[in-house]
């Protein structure tokens, strides 16, 4: 059995809105092993994004534990979380979320900037990554000058820049046409083949064919169990 990278153990996330409490997660258990390609699927509102936030250390649970490489991160400060996120996890979002004022190259360099990597090195890595995702000719372009598929490829290059353990993708093809979406999925699949752990969240059951393992969630719970 492969080593566990991220593990959610009876994780609860409860949002308090006025009088009512909305449980987004109610006892979520997930164990993600090194080298896996996991698809987390479920209907809208089932808690996929919230699960993703937990896995990505973007949020801390109301109750329960989140382990990243066996360290409990539920007690860490925001700054420590940021540091861990930056190093261990790469995000790919449905809406790309590139920084609009920065060029493709600068966008890819940004996560490394936050890790205080020297400029020369950042430049070299970022250029290589853009070549790798097939955008060697677009390094100086602003996001507004790129197509949706190109933006998502820049986002993937950015997610890879600190050479993280895990790539987290939240509906990565949600804003793309099916052909471009397929390209992106193939790219993720290729990364997995090269050894990256990938967790993808989607409501599109079609995409599960790219994954090695599928986790179905409903009402904030893993219903595979």
């Amino acid at each position, binding site marked *: 059995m492969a080593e566990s990278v991220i593990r959610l153990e009876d994780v609860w996330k409860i949002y308090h809105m006025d009088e009512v409490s909305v449980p987004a997660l109610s006892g979520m258990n997930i164990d993600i092993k090194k080298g896996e390609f996991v698809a987390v699927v479920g209907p809208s509102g089932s808690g996929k994004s919230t699960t993703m936030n937990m896995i990505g250390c973007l949020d801390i649970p109301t109750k329960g534990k989140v382990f990243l490489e066996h360290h409990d991160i539920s007690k860490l400060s925001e700054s420590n979380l940021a*540091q861990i996120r930056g190093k261990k996890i790469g995000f790919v*979002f449905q809406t790309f*979320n590139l920084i*609009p*004022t920065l060029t493709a190259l600068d966008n890819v360099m940004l996560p490394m900037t936050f*890790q205080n990597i020297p400029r020369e090195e950042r430049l070299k890595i970022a250029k290589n990554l853009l070549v790798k995702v097939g955008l060697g000719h677009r390094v100086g372009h602003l996001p507004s000058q790129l197509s949706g598929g190109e933006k998502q490829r820049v986002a993937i290059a950015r997610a890879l820049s*600190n050479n993280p353990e895990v790539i987290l993708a939240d509906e990565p093809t949600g804003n793309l046409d099916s052909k471009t979406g397929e390209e992106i999925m193939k790219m993720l699949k290729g990364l997995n083949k090269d050894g990256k752990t990938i967790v993808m969240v989607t409501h599109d059951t079609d995409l599960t064919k790219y994954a090695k393992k599928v986790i179905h969630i409903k009402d904030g719970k893993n219903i595979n169990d």
Partner: protein
Amino acid sequence: MIRDFIGYGISNLRRSGLRSWLTMIGIFIGMASVVALISLGQGLENSINEQFEAIGADKIIVQSKGIFGAPTTEVESLTEKDLKIIENTNGIVDATGYIIDTAKLEFNDIVRYFVLVGIDNEDELIKEIYSYDIEEGRNLKKGEKFKVVLGNDFFKSELFDKKLKLRDTILLNDIEFTIVGFYETVGNQIDDRNVYVSYEVAEDLYDKEGEYSFIFAKAASDTIPEEAAERVEKEIRDDRGLDEGNEDFTVQSAKDLFESFATILNILQIFLIGIAGISLVVGGIGIMNTMYTAVLERTKEIGVMKSIGAKNSDILMIFVIESGILGFVGGVIGVILGVGFSKMVEIIAANAGYSIIKISFPPFLIIGTLIFAFVVGSLSGLIPAYKASKLQPVDALRYE
């Protein structure tokens, strides 16, 4: 890292274009006024100091009270007797007096009025105080009759629809005088339009035998000029039988005179810079407002940056640097405008005949202003930046 944040800040400010410029107006108006006021004030102070040094710290000026130029029959004028008293006062080594009055000049059928100075050019003390050179012709001799020397403006400008030249004859108080010389410019138009005759001629012209409008005295090098001035005051007071505080004359050391100038100038400067300072505060509030808007607009971006590893301190720094740049660029423009404005004042003043205003831009003023502008900008951005840094990544990411 700072370098990257600066680049990021600049590109964001460019993205907000017009809003950034409008925000900077607030800062650069304040900065421009501060720079202009300080440099003009400094320039004025420097030229006052120059004049002070030209006259010398050891000089004492005695004059009658009463408004200059007005017929002052009630006011006792200074006399030869006063001059003797002053000369004999302990600590005074030399004294001399001269007459100032209004001169009616007629030339080319045009009549104009100027200030006349009746002066003994051969007196050592006058030479020391009135150290200007003759540009054309020669100076007056002691007691020389029907000869006049004029200020530079008569030579350079067409005050009588044409320029005057040497050996021209003009009517001075209806008496014919010949021009024998012109002074070099002294740097202000008022004195460049003075009319000079010998003291004796002025005595006759104005029927002021043995009288003086001003008496200049020189303190000995081993006395303190202000103390000598007090002794002069006491001697004349005693002679005239007046009580202290009721003098009909004033005695001032050159230092007193210039210090009172400097004090007025300083008060004025502090007042004006205070007003300019208020506009800086307003500018700072403008920056704060703009940064609040920027934080709100870029909430999602902040979430994205946090998700890719930005710590709270990184976000704080990004926004503080951005508002610092706003302040700094505002400062640069402000310095340029301020320098330009005071240069303009200098040139306009010089064209109007007042070349005494020599503005100065000490480097500390320029550098200090720019640092100050950056600090004002950063401080104004601090609260919005802090707010940005405290955003929860999940909440920020969900923001649309």
